């Protein structure tokens, strides 16, 4: 797959990143290299093979429905964010 500036811009948009032109150019070659390296896998015939969900062959790993004390309190968690208002996380306008 060929990575062009359009691909990079699309990815940046999906990730909500603002990229400078030089960053964008650098990423283009970086990602192109990674994809070329990974594309070796394309030689394998995967026709009719289900994507691998996990490699440990585990099933039904679940927990009882009980409230447990967390390692970090709600206030500690909230204090990790940059700006708090009305006990909420303040973010740039999204709508």
């Amino acid at each position, binding site marked *: 797959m060929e990575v062009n500036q359009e691909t990079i811009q699309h990815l940046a948009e999906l990730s909500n990143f603002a990229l400078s032109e030089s960053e964008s150019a650098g990423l283009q070659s970086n990602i192109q290299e990674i994809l070329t390296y990974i594309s070796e896998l394309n030689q394998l015939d995967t026709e009719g093979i289900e994507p691998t969900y996990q490699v440990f062959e585990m099933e039904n*790993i679940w*927990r009882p429905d*009980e409230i447990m004390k967390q390692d*970090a309190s709600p206030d500690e968690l909230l204090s990790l964010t940059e700006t708090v208002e*009305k006990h909420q996380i303040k973010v740039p306008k999204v709508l």
Partner: protein
Amino acid sequence: MTKEYLPTIGIECHVQLCTKTKLFSEVDNDARLKEPNSCVSPVDYALPGMLPRLNSEAIRLSVLAGFALNAEINLESRFDRKHYFYPDLPKGYQITQMYHPIIGAGYVELPSGQKVRIEHAHLEEDAGKLSHEASYSLVDLNRAGTPLVEIVSQPDMHSAAEAREYTKELWRVMTYAGVTFGDLYNGNMRFDVNISVAETGSDQLGTRTEVKNLNSFRNVERVVEYEVKRQIELLEKGEKVIQETRGWNDATGETTGQRSKEEAADYRYMPEPDIPPVRLTEAEINEMRAEFPKMPKDYRADLTTVIGAGQTETLLDYQPLVQKLDELGDTKAVKKIANLFSSVLLAEENTSLLNDELPSKEQLLELVRMNDNKELSSTATKEVFLKFFDPEMHYKDTLTIAKELGVLQENDLGALEAIVDAVLAQPATKQAQDDFRSGQEKVLGFLVGQVMKESKGKANPSAVQDILRKKLQ
């Protein structure tokens, strides 16, 4: 000449499951009346290295939701990541079931008997709640990670009324199954409605629009009415319907186009490696099915023949009431008690009683028997019925309550005759007696009234009338 158009409607519904904890973290899932960001864990904040831990109860409730949808339960289900960048979900992706949902194809049967097919339903996590201020937005993550079952219908509905009926019946079956609190005001069920119109007879569907996040049956109906009209007007003008997400404005009753980034969504689904597949056995599913409660359609079949369709549909909104009627077992009792439910419990001033424990089957059957035997007048029957909800009276049997209220009707003919004789012996009634004998029917009412007064209201008026007629011949 005007063309005829056929609307086609499909609905996706998000149902919040009533688990104690969230889908992937062990914090309180009930954030009603709680401070924003108070029901949160490091998992909900997506702190580095945090791993989701699947809530087994969400799996159990999903299976029950599947039964309610008359759907096949997929023995194996898996989770996937749906990527999108938005502040309501700090991970940058939502864990959902794209390829292997837990609930397969099913249907919902509407009161009319029409079946709306369900394409599938899957388990996923809810996102946080955003509120928008003038120049910024605020994020509350209490809801992030609440388990949701998303139910995807086939486009089987063709009118606003059908869409409303479907959403209402869906609410009923989900609450009857006990998988959700079904509190629409608090967003326990939210509807995304897809609407298109096509010329009648056309073998192709028109271009559809989607209106998301509706939280009442009424609004679903209004949205469909509005969109169908809008789309037909566009087509009549020779214009095209644009495929888009539209927002509903409750105040104006209109939908407006929303140019959102989501239109060009690229979710890059991938298998969720942090959650191993869920595999259920036939035996486990059968075990759960054995305990599955009756659904509205099961009650509907029995009740409609006894109390009619209208009253049945009203009462079906209250699962405990139809359960209680079902318990009574006797057609005549069902009729009387259904009427008491409708006229007393559903009367506006009494609706708070619906939160209380209902009277026992024994109390109700005795009430019906006493009313049949004229030991209780219809007014007294209502009075006693209301006392069943009085915490002081709740545990007492019907006869005891009636006695304490002093509303038992006097039916003992001997005792009644004695009272009638006493009244007739009063000089004050002499004139009336003469009038009646000379053919003035209506003074009988006066005499009955005197006897009622003498009996302190406990005499059975029709028995009194009979005795008076005999005595005044």
